[in-house]
């Protein structure tokens, strides 16, 4: 190799020194060789012409030339002689011939080298060189990195600051890069691109070297001369790492230097590396591996973030609310991995632009379609099949992305011999559609649609169907470099139906639906280098059809019954300012003011004072006309965070936020079910209010390859809901009689050690957390556990997660995932007694015992196909084993009285190792 470089250097030196005649006319060659060494050909050419050869004898010593040429030029002779070998040749205008192994040599200067137009000789020679796309981009990258960009009209006034703005995109598909860092080093000023890949940075006027970094993209620099406000669009190359080296690169500073705390961001690449439960990358399962996130059990829907209830999470998919992100009662999530870009989970330090739920914000964004070319991808796993297509509708302007996923479990069920299962049905599908359109430099439009549908029926009994649909439209308008606005409109609808025809007399159809229409306008204003201001207004209109039941079939005597529809409106205005006091100290202060009204038309029951609300204490019913306010609530929601950098690699952060929630889920089951109902706050059910303080310490070590973080939090919840024993929630006309007011408190510490990139990457986390609830009622008959605090269903004090990836090579990737947590609390029977011919159980204090601890290990191996750039389709195989140790983790514990005996059972869902194979493809 070394010799090769020597040759190249010699060649370039020659090129500079000799300036002789044009090489095309140096004479023709006659040569007759049979099995001769290469040297003999060289001698023949050099003697007949004035060409001079540069080559490495070692690369040619095994070569035997058989050739017959009469009056041919040197290109033809060498072309013939070297055909089928690894050798390339290049002829420069000065008559030098370079013979190299494996790669061509460039004999001309790069395009735009002198920026004065194209040299005439290039036209003729360029065709002789076959750069791979990679090398071409490499070359272009060097060009743009060395070029000096003038920003703004030239002027001699270089006093003061100016703001430059633009987008950072992926050069291969034009997709915006979120979270890319754009900064200068002296003085250290930097910004991070937003969800559109947009950045705006205010810098002192003058010459700068602007650095741009993003995860899994090649870092780049731009030489800029900043005269006044202006624009700079930046494209980054994906980091195609050569086989032998691995470059460690990440947004390594964000955790320490960023303002945000209690936030986890995962991109789809990270998620795809994790072992799969059922052959599907499932973002909800990945999120569960993060510290501070729990669920009540394996294969359940809800996330419990920092001791909050499952309905306290705001789940957004492209800014539209998702009410039920699960398929098959929670065994799968509804987000198709092929269309996803990233997931952000905010556990604390939630900024003022988010509101409406207490615990967390899970912001799921899908990719935008490829702006440059058509592409497809898909996969086949044991349960599902999926396909995604994307491409430009108008090149460089409009793109689309459509993804669909469906299951063939129905077909599998029919193949089974078990009679019960044969008559069963379980199916689901989900569809995603995204269109993004660049109207012009200042206006972008994004359309997103999503739908998931599930159908479920067991053994010809009750059948269930549920569906979550939403659509959103987003318009981004850039006023100037300092100000842009995003207007979002969306509609979300969740509905389910239940129907039974087991007994024709009682056959029924029952349905429920909730719909919300929301609009939001959000302004981002980069006031100066120190202040970034974010403000906006948001309106959400809820309408619920809380339950409707009707007879099914002619024989049915079921009464038609419909609960009154519910309407409510939640308005909010907010403003927040990110203030960089000094490089060491940043402050975010914001406030959101939300105002909610519960609206007519509705008949509202009135209850007697001083006794527990019940059906018998109804005294009257008041009618409110359409649009009349029945109850209204509102209040300020302050949000505050502060970051102080102790050193360049360490920082301390503190945050406080208050959240209000005007819609809650009614559920008295341990896990969320698809048939849980949502209820708006009304005259009796007050909105939930949550406060959280958290403190964190962050440190990066060893050149940022290890990130350490420690966060502690304490939070309280007011007006949480609990239910009286035996409450029936479905089709209940006066749900307020079955509800008990309660409050909650939760606290914990989360420790995380993360290596974001490198051959070995992943994280290890430990969480200590507690979560308690307490019923608040003046009536002894309504309180749970004598009115004391009791552990919530998802109170799991200790949790350890390990997620590790090891890249053996670019094609083999090994992942290991280990999870441990304390068992969830359960209520055990205290005693048994005889009644009605059998033993009955007496349950008392809630959640005083725990099911056995949970432990699981999963592994997966990812094998990519070869990395040839040009081939029909790229494919990969994933082999995974879920629950490798086959530990029978308790899913639930229950008791039954059977033949006069009380028997306890422990149910484990994944009691054995579950191997899966998934095939993924991309074209």
């Amino acid at each position, binding site marked *: 190799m070394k010799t090769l470089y020597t040759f190249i250097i010699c060649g370039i030196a020659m090129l500079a020194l000799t300036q002789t005649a044009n090489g095309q006319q140096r004479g023709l060659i006659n040569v007759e060789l049979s099995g001769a060494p290469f040297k003999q050909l060289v001698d023949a050419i050099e003697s007949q012409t004035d060409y001079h050869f540069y080559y490495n004898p070692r690369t040619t010593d095994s070569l035997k030339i058989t050739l017959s040429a009469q009056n041919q030029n040197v290109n033809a002779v060498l072309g013939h002689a070297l055909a089928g070998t690894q050798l390339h040749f290049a002829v420069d205008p000065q008559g030098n011939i370079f013979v190299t192994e494996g790669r061509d040599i460039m004999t001309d200067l790069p395009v735009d080298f002198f920026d004065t137009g194209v040299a005439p000789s290039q036209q003729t020679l360029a065709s002789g060189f076959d750069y791979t796309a990679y090398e071409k981009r490499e070359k272009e990258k060097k060009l743009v990195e060395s070029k000096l960009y003038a920003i703004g009209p030239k002027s001699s006034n270089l006093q003061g600051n100016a703001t430059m703005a633009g987008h950072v995109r992926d050069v291969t598909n034009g997709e915006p890069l979120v979270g890319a860092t754009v900064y200068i080093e002296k003085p250290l000023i930097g910004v991070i691109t937003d969800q559109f890949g947009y950045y705006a940075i205010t810098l002192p006027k003058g010459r700068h070297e602007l650095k741009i970094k993003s995860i899994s993209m090649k870092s780049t620099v731009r030489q800029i001369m900043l005269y006044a406000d202006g624009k700079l669009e930046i494209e980054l190359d994906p980091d195609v790492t050569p086989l032998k080296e691995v470059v460690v690169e990440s947004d390594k500073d964000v955790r320490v230097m960023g303002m945000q705390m209690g936030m986890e961001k995962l991109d789809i690449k990270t998620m795809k590396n994790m072992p799969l439960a059922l052959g599907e990358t499932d973002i909800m399962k990945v999120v569960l591996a993060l510290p501070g996130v729990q669920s009540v059990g394996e294969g359940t829907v809800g996330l419990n973030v920092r001791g909050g209830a499952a309905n306290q999470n705001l789940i957004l998919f492209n800014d539209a609310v998702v009410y039920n992100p699960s398929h098959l009662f929670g065994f799968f999530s509804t987000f198709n991995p092929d269309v996803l870009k990233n997931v952000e989970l905010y556990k604390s330090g939630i900024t003022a632009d988010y509101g409406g739920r207490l615990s967390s914000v899970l912001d799921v964004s899908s990719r935008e379609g490829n702006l440059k070319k058509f592409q497809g991808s898909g996969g086949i796993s044991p349960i599902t099949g999926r396909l995604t297509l994307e491409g430009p509708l108008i090149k460089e302007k409009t793109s689309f992305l459509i993804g669909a996923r469906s299951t063939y479990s129905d077909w599998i069920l029919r193949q089974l011999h078990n009679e019960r299962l044969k008559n069963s049905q379980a199916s689901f599908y989900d569809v995603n559609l995204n269109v993004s359109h660049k109207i012009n430099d200042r206006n972008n439009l994004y359309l997103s649609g999503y739908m998931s549908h599930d159908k479920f029926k067991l053994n010809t009994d009750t059948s269930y169907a549920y569906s979550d649909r939403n659509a959103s439209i987003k318009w981004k308008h850039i006023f100037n470099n300092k100000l842009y606005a995003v207007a979002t409109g969306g509609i979300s609808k969740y509905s389910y139906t239940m129907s039974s025809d087991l007994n024709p007399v009682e056959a029924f159809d029952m349905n429920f639906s909730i719909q919300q229409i929301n609009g939001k306008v959000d302004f981002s204003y980069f006031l100066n280098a120190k202040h970034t201001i974010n403000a906006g207004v948001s309106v959400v209109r809820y309408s619920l059809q809380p339950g409707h039941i009707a007879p099914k079939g002619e024989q049915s005597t079921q009464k038609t019954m419909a609960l009154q529809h519910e309407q409510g409106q939640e308005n909010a205005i907010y403003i927040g300012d990110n203030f960089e006091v000094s490089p060491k100290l940043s402050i975010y202060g914001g406030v959101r003011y939300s105002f909610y009204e519960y609206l007519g038309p509705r008949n509202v029951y009135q209850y007697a004072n001083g006794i527990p609300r019940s059906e018998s204490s109804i005294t009257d019913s008041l009618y409110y006309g359409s649009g009349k306010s029945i109850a209204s609530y509102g209040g300020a929601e302050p949000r505050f965070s502060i970051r102080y950098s102790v050193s360049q690699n360490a920082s301390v952060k503190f945050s406080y936020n208050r959240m209000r929630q005007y819609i809650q889920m009614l559920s008295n089951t341990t896990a969320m079910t698809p048939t849980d109902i949502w209820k708006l706050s009304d005259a009796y059910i007050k909105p939930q209010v949550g406060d959280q303080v958290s403190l964190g310490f962050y440190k990066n070590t060893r050149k940022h390859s290890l990130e350490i973080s420690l966060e502690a939090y304490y939070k309280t919840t007011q007006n949480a809901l609990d239910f009286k024993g035996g*409450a029936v929630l479905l089709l209940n006309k006066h749900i307020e009689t079955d509800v008990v007011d309660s409050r909650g408190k939760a606290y914990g510490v989360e420790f995380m050690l993360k290596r974001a990139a490198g051959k070995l990457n992943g994280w290890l986390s430990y969480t200590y957390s507690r979560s308690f609830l307490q019923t608040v009622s003046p009536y002894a008959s309504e309180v749970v556990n004598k009115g004391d605090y009791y552990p919530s269903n998802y109170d799991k004090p200790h949790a350890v997660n390990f997620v590790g990836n090891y890249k053996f090579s670019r094609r083999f990737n090994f992942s290991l995932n280990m999870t441990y947590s304390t068992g969830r609390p359960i209520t055990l029977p205290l005693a048994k007694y005889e009644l009605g011919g059998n033993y009955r159980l007496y349950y008392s204090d809630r959640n005083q015992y725990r099911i056995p601890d949970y432990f699981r290990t999963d592994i997966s191996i990812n094998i990519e196909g070869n990395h040839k750039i040009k081939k029909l389709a790229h494919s990969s195989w994933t082999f995974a084993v879920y629950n490798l140790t086959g530990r*029978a983790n308790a899913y639930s514990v229950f008791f039954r009285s059977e033949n006069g005996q009380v028997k306890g059972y422990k149910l484990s869902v994944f009691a054995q190792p579950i191997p899966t194979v998934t095939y993924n493809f991309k074209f």
Partner: protein
Amino acid sequence: MTFTKKHISVYALAAFLFSSCLDPYSPPATTGDVDLLVVDGYLSVTSSSVAVRLSHAVALDDSGVPPAEQNANVRLEESDGGAVILSGGTDGNYTATGLTIDASKKYRVHIQTLGGKEYYSDYVDVLKTPDIDSVTWRPSDKDLTLYVNTHDDTGNSKYYLWNYVETFEYSAPYPAGYEVINGEPTYLPVDERVDICYKTNLSTNILVTSSERLSVDLIRDFPLVVIPAGTSKISRRYSLLVTQRTISKEAYTFWTQLQKTTESLGGLFDPMPSEVVGNVHSATSATEPVLGFFSAGEEKQQRIFINNRDLPDNIRRMPLPFCPLDSIEMPIVRSLPDHTFLVYPYGVPVTLGYVSTTIDCMDCRVKGGVTHKPDFW
């Protein structure tokens, strides 16, 4: 009933999709005071009697019979003050018969235990119960289900509770013809035969339903009993005596809650278990839970019979019993203890010995029945 169907089915799905498993689970020893009074009482207009059973709850791992509350003073009190003292009490069962019950009045029980504690039930209405329309049965491919049908034209009943007594006739496959007495095989007289038995079981499940969501007060095909195909219950003749009671809404809530908390609970999609409180309260301590319920009303009964020959083949066909026959030579027969059963002799003209088999094949009483034929049979 089907309306509030729980998602228990998800387990079956899980079982299919994944390899789920069900293991026995023994809970950790629970602590706390479990000595709670259990009151199970019913005032029957139909039989002009009241029956109250008083017992106590026991710890979950206690294998003994729950202790009865003995020698308490139990009174039935009318809403305007009249009272009757119930007799009995050594076994926890207290009764009074031959009562004159005024259906327009309300009744309650008042209990004073020997330990000095005092309890009252709520006053309850005396409810009318409509007749049972029919008790029917329908076979499926692997079992037989018995259903009850009723309706109330007045529409006042709405909430129903049933219990039943099932009785069935079955036989021993190789009935004993002889028994050993003083070392000699003796022919069993007809009235001592143990070839045919009758067994009686009481219902153990809580059978309640309501028509409140229906436009008419009609219960059709409420399933009471499921009998698997080819079982001894339907090997000869089966009888079911169904007792129907109209219950109050409170009682209905109590029994459904009790059903949920004891017959299926603990699954992630089941309601969280809670204390199920009935309508009996302690007069001395407001916080002392009292278990059980007291109701009053009419009882309606209906009995049906199902003969083996009326059933479809797939249900009536019995699996062959496992009865290994053994021949025992006379000297050994003579050494057998008294009352050892033998099937029949072998050897002609001289009896060489007797054929015998396992005891459950010769004596139907081993499986719990009695040979005395019930009066109604």
